[in-house]
Structure formats: structure tokens, C-alpha cells
């Protein structure tokens, strides 16, 4: 386990791809989960995860991560990459062509699990599709990815109060349209 902090790795990663690789290993699962929940497509989410980190590397000189984790910033990029997936794929098409070949095949159980997972993801996505886009973004970052209000604000480039109010509006909207209320945020739980 790499014990260096995100910020230490980030400083090194500006010139050292291996340090960036360590950040990838640390945050790829969270980025992948975010992409998967937004697309409901596990294979697409895998490619988008790679694109997010390629984009992050491209912008590394323009960034000074705030806080202790670079994850909010990565999810901010993921947010944009998912929204502009076509353009992102085009920008990084050469790198995508060189992606490692997919595994030869999945076990039948594995395939069935993926199908089930994608079905659940699609169902969850449909549930928030009725929300205005900005409220949907906040739900995905705060409730689904576990970011704090501050981190979501950083990811979306909006003030913290905006995140709070969007989430509040989303709750109110969904309360009237769903059988189940939104789950509490990590901050509320703590």
C-alpha cells in the first residue's frame, strides 16, 4: 500500500507518471463507480475511467488540489467527461486504441452479475433522470459518491451553498414523486 498522501503523490505526479499511476490505483474504483452510475454501462465506465485520468494528467499543470484528497477534483473531471463522452473519447482516441485487450471472457456467473448490476444501475439512473440536470449532478456526487458538500462544490465549481440548495430541492422534488425518500448524506449520518 502506498502510504504517501494524495498531495504528495500529486506533487510528484506533475513530472512522474508512476506517481500518477499510484493515484489511479487509489481512486480508479471511485471514479469507475461514478461513471458506472451515471452511464449504467460498465464497459463504457471502464473506458471513461481511463479517460478521466488522461484528462487529469492533461490538466495537471492547471490544478492545485484543495483539501487532502484529489478525488473531488477527479470526480469533477469525471462529471464533465460523462457529460461530453463523445468529445472526450475523440480527444483520447489514440490512447483508447492502445488500451489493453479485454479479458478473454467472463465466467457465466460474472456475466450474469454484470447484467444484473447494469439493470440496477439503469433503474437507479432512471430514478433521478426526472431531476433537473444540476440537481442530478449533486445527487450523484453527494449521495452516490459520498462527497461532502464542500467537495461537491469543488467538483462542480459552484459555491457550497449552491450544492446544499440543489440537494434540498432534489429532496423536495423526489419526496413528492418517489415512494422512498433520498438517503441521508454522509455528513448527516455523522
Amino acid at each position, binding site marked *: 500500500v502506498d502510504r504517501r498522501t494524495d498531495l504528495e503523490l500529486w506533487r510528484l505526479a506533475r513530472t512522474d507518471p508512476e506517481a500518477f499511476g499510484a493515484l489511479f490505483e487509489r481512486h480508479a*474504483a471511485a471514479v469507475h463507480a461514478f461513471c458506472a452510475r451515471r452511464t449504467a454501462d460498465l464497459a463504457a465506465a*471502464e473506458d471513461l475511467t481511463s479517460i478521466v485520468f488522461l484528462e487529469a494528467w492533461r490538466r495537471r499543470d492547471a490544478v492545485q488540489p484543495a483539501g487532502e484528497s484529489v478525488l473531488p477534483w477527479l470526480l469533477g473531471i469525471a462529471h464533465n467527461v460523462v457529460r461530453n463522452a463523445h468529445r472526450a473519447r475523440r480527444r483520447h482516441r489514440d490512447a483508447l486504441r492502445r488500451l489493453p485487450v479485454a479479458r478473454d471472457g467472463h465466467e457465466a456467473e460474472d456475466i450474469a452479475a454484470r447484467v444484473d*448490476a447494469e439493470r440496477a444501475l439503469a433503474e437507479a439512473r432512471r430514478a433521478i433522470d426526472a431531476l433537473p440536470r444540476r440537481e442530478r449532478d449533486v445527487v450523484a456526487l453527494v449521495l452516490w459518491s459520498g462527497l461532502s458538500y464542500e467537495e461537491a462544490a469543488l467538483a462542480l465549481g459552484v459555491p457550497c451553498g*449552491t450544492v446544499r440548495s440543489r440537494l434540498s430541492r432534489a429532496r423536495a422534488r423526489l419526496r413528492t414523486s418517489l415512494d422512498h425518500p433520498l438517503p441521508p448524506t454522509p455528513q448527516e449520518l455523522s
Partner: protein
Amino acid sequence: MTDLLPAPVPELDEGWLAARREHLVRELAAPAPSPRVSRRGVLGGVGAVCGAGAASAAGLILAGGPGASSAFAGWRAAPSVPAAGQLQSATARCEQPQPKAPPPGGVSTSLGPKPSGGPPAWPDPSTWRLQVSDVRGPFSMLVFSAPPDATVMCIAGPDFSAISLGVNHSAAAGGVLANGIAIERYATARNPQGPEPYTFVVGRVGSAVSAATLQLSDGTTVTATVSGGRLLAWWPGQAAATAAQLTTPSATVTQALSAATPPEQPTAHVGTATGSCRGVQGADRPSTCTAKAGPFVAAHSGAATGSCGGVQGAGPSTCAGGAEGHVVRGAPRGVVVGGR
């Protein structure tokens, strides 16, 4: 009906992670291909500075050279300590005599017609007074005041330099809250010869503000230079500044910036593509331009000193001139404290 708990996502297996990490590191270690110059950049012409609030600006000359597409290599998100002689060298480059004629393929860099019809001259560099400097790696951005009422902004880097001139139509922006900032200029500039666009912010800070970090629309942050009551920052690209985190003795406060997108000007002029114009250049009646520059609205009027015209076909009108006019409505109002 589903609930909105996060749907479970199958875990990534270690083989996938290792293979993708290896791929990523390999891609990043490979030499980057030369970035393509976007068509938009070529069509953009000489980048320009947009006056905002109390200042109207016009005229930006960028000098790029072959290979300038990597012009921002080495840029830093936080100000850095200048190398020995860096500021002196940048000042010397900025003070070089500016051509009156546009560079080949460029566009007019004049400030707009004087009542006599001739373009105003650049202020004599010997009269400039440095207000604030911002160093980011090999790049130096300098803001000078030039009597009687002009502001000269200059950026110098390894591959290019640019200089712009603004004319203040009214006294310096007042009313800055002690724990707030007021943006005076905020725009995207670009150069057809290679460098990618960059966006800058020039402003004033309240007396209690000791540091400022700008949050950009792409999720990144940029630490501004805060010195002598001035704020200065710039970054590659066109991301908008959405908020500023300000350090004061008592707390860190966040100030929302209402600008959604930095204005971009395809030619040297005052205002942006969202302006509207009344009157016709040369007509007997005064022309009036109302230009919305990002978070600001500035209006200028003056007999035959403005010009109006559409930009790139069917786009909205822009306002040109105004350097000789006066502000009839233009107090900075772009900085909104609180939510959006």
C-alpha cells in the same frame, strides 16, 4: 419504485486495475503529440482584452512563434518566485515600442477612433507605474498604470508575449468590501499563431483580504496574486471563474462570481459579443454601446466615437470604440456575494 441509494457497482478486479494502470503510465510517459491548432483559434484573430466595469480596454498584440502551441508549458496554478532577472526581462519586453499596424494576418489593434479619427498612441513606457506582477513558472504578467487614465497589462512567457491597453472611464472601482473582491477585467484572450487561449482576472481586493483562490468551472483552482490591494490571476484555457475563496484575518470566505463564461473578443474592441448598439459610426447623433462583459455591464456613449457591427455573420452586435466616450452606466456589478 426504486429508492435512491447508490446502486452497487461490481468491484474492479486487480488484473484490470494493474493493466489499466500500466497503460496509463505508458501513455503518460510517451512524448505528447503536438497539439492541433483549433480552427476556432485561427478564426479568433488576435486575442483581446475586454474592459469590464470601470475600464474599457482595447488592443492586444500577441507575438507567437513556431512551436508556440506549447506556450503554457511550465505554468503553475499558484504564483511562484521569479527567477533572477525574470521580472526585469518581462518589463523590458513589455516596454518595447508597440507597432501601430497589426501583425500580418492580424486585425486592428487600435484603441478605437479618437474624435479626430486617428488611433491613440500607446502610452509612453517611461510614465508607466507597476501596480502588480504575477509570476507563474516562466510566465510573468504585469499590470501598469499609465497616466492619465490607462492601464497596461502585459504577459511575457518563453514563446510569446502580449500587451493590452485599457482606458479607465471612471475612477477606480470603489466600494470593495473589506472582505471581498471586485473584478475589473475578466476575459479570454487567444492568438492565432499558436498559443492556446488563456483567461485572466484583474481586480481589487478589500483591505482584509490577504489571499485569494479562484475556483474554476472545470473543477480546478488557481491561486491569485494579491498585492497592494490588487488581485491578478490567469490560467490556460477558457474555464470560467465561478467563485473566490478569500482569506481574511477572521475566516476564509467564499465569494461567488456570477460570470458564467469569460468574454472572448475576436477583434480588438470594447465590449463583447453580447453587446447591443444604437447609432451608427459617423452619424450625427451619438452612438451608444452597451456591452456586457462577463459579470459586468458597461455602457459608453459619445458622438461618433462608437461603432457597431455584427461579428462573424449573424452573431450579436459588438461595440467598438468607447475609449473616447464616457461611462453612462457601468459600475461594476459583477461580483455577487452569496449564492448564485
